[in-house]
């Protein structure tokens, strides 16, 4: 039995692949013949990232105060309408997907499109391009607020039990949930089947509300609610931020946010009522300049998010087959050559290998950075790892756009007809030129890396004054390497080298 016979495929992607004319690049089919060899593109992208390091090193020689950037307040009326609209949308979106999955079920792709395409990859892209919509959209916040309202009417002083959250636990629950989510999206057999999606979402709802009831809303949302943590990080790239009206709200905040600005502080964002925060506009990416006090769990979370999307790309190309062929013989000797468990274990090991390789490379880079800083490094290794991991977020954002934007666009185009006919509607074919997909990928990936280089240099200026350029070299190496790797992954299924005949015409 071939490998793919038992392989479920990425849930969202599988849906859209089962439509006429769709192939690689997730939703847009076809290939594109390059004008110059691919290696020139890859080298050019690497040089662009290196050049941005040289320019940044020469132009920024002293650490600038964090959060030094202009903001503009968005009109209150617009914010109010948007907030109410998002709350309604979030409830209908989340519970609607569960309801449709359980009631209609069968072959309806709607729950999977709503979860895997809409929430799983769509919202991080929205957070990167616009800002984090989740604090308003979150069905868990709205549901919990509704439960609190009921409890108050019933005479209860508070809804949650207020159990102490173990201080050493950090955001590890969110890390575990992210790993489980990536596995469910990419490996779980039948992960795109309507009823499975509904059950996953229902189970996550119960888990989240239980956590909020036990430990309180603020603690659970900022440490364990996967989407809150993930979109909180990606939302720092987007230009739309949330500003607490009163700096007092952030004074007791554990996150180390600047109380004078109190912008996008995860804890304050959760703790503040709607009327206690307001939306402001700021330039892109600058929100990552004040990441608070990230630690090991944040570092692992961010690196895992990056490894997840990279694994999804790798398995579409020859590297994925190579990894499979390396692991399969060992597992098949134990579990049998055609057992479903064999393929499940092999794929899980592939994902774990990519994640461990990414983590090992990242930790090695952080260690080298601390060593090159020259003196006894300030702060723990975990603190350095957390802060440098934040500089990877624009890279993850760029890669998300390059890898998934076409899938999200096709999902959005499909939604109206899917809502009208959740069972039989077929995905429409989008006529987006593949050349456009390629150049968008180049811009998103190179742009993300350049932003990462600048952020990492500013971090080094604070940690290693006088030696920032030297201390920045390991991260630069990592970023150039990942620029080339990610562009190659994106390019492999969609580009044809100059002069080469398209696969369909080869003898």
């Amino acid at each position, binding site marked *: 039995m071939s490998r793919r016979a038992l392989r479920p495929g990425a849930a969202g992607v599988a849906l859209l692949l*089962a439509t006429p004319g769709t192939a690689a690049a997730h939703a847009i089919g076809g290939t594109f013949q390059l004008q110059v060899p691919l290696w020139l593109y890859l080298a050019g992208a690497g040089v662009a990232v290196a050049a941005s390091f040289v320019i940044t090193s020469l132009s920024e020689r002293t650490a600038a105060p964090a959060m030094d950037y202009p903001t503009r307040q968005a009109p209150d009326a617009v914010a109010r309408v948007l907030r109410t609209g998002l709350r309604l949308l979030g409830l209908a979106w989340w519970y609607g997907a569960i309801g449709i999955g359980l009631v209609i079920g069968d072959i309806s792709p709607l729950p999977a499109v709503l979860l895997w395409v809409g929430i799983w990859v769509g919202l991080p892209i929205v957070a990167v391009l616009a800002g984090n919509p989740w604090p308003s959209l979150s069905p868990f916040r709205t549901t919990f607020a509704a439960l609190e309202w009921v409890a*108050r009417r019933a005479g209860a002083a508070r809804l949650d039990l207020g159990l102490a959250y173990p201080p050493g636990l950090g955001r590890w629950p969110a890390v575990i949930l992210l790993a489980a989510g990536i596995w469910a999206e990419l490996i779980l057999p039948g992960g795109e089947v309507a009823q499975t999606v509904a059950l996953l979402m229902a189970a996550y709802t119960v888990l989240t509300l239980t956590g909020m009831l036990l430990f309180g809303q603020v603690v659970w949302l900022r440490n364990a609610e996967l989407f809150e943590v993930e979109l909180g990080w990606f939302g720092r790239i987007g230009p739309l931020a949330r500003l607490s009206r009163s700096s007092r709200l952030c004074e007791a905040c554990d996150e180390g946010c600047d109380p004078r600005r109190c912008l996008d502080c995860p804890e304050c964002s959760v703790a503040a009522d709607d009327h206690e925060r307001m939306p402001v506009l700021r330039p892109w990416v600058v929100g990552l300049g004040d990441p608070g006090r990230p630690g090991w769990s944040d570092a692992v979370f961010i690196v895992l998010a990056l490894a997840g999307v990279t694994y999804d790309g790798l398995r579409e190309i020859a590297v994925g087959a190579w990894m499979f062929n390396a692991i399969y013989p060992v597992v098949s000797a134990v579990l049998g050559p055609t057992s479903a468990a064999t393929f499940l274990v092999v794929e899980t090991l592939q994902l774990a290998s990519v994640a461990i390789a990414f983590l090992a490379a990242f930790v090695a880079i952080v260690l080298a950075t601390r060593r090159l800083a020259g003196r006894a490094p300030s702060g723990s290794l975990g603190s350095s790892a957390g802060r440098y991991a934040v500089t990877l977020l624009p890279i993850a954002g760029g890669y998300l756009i390059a890898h998934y934007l076409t899938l999200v666009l096709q999902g959005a185009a499909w939604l109206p007809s899917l809502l009208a006919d959740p069972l039989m509607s077929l995905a429409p074919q989008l006529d987006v030129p593949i050349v456009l997909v390629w150049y968008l990928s180049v811009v998103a990936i190179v742009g993300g890396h350049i932003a990462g280089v600048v952020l990492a240099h500013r971090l080094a200026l604070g940690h290693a004054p006088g030696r920032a350029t030297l201390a920045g070299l390991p991260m630069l190496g990592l970023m150039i390497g990942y620029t080339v790797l990610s562009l190659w992954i994106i390019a492999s299924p969609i580009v044809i080298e100059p002069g080469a005949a398209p696969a369909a015409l080869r003898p």
Partner: protein
Amino acid sequence: MRHPRAPAALLLLAITIIGGCVGGAADCEALPTRIELALAADRLVPSDPAVCRDRDVTLVVTPEVDGILHVHGYDDQLPATEVTAGEVIELSFSAARSGQFPIELHTDDNAQGSSVGILRVHEP
């Protein structure tokens, strides 16, 4: 810090909306496991054969044209198959995945291929 006011009403409204979105699925017991299909250059009759997951299925295809028949997304269970005008061919496979899968025909005139129908594999 929190003083929730309207969320309960929003939740009720959302549940009402969801309540309206109900329907029915296919009856797997009533679906056949052997389906006869007529294949022309631009269409399949019937165009949307429906089966159930985990069943052994046979498609009996009567082609009017030469070409290569291919069920997109089912290549592992049902590899692309050459068909010849007038020669009935039986395609047997195990329906391992549920969903909707385009049936494509590639001919000499249209090497790129075009979708002639949809195979629907329902959940049992």
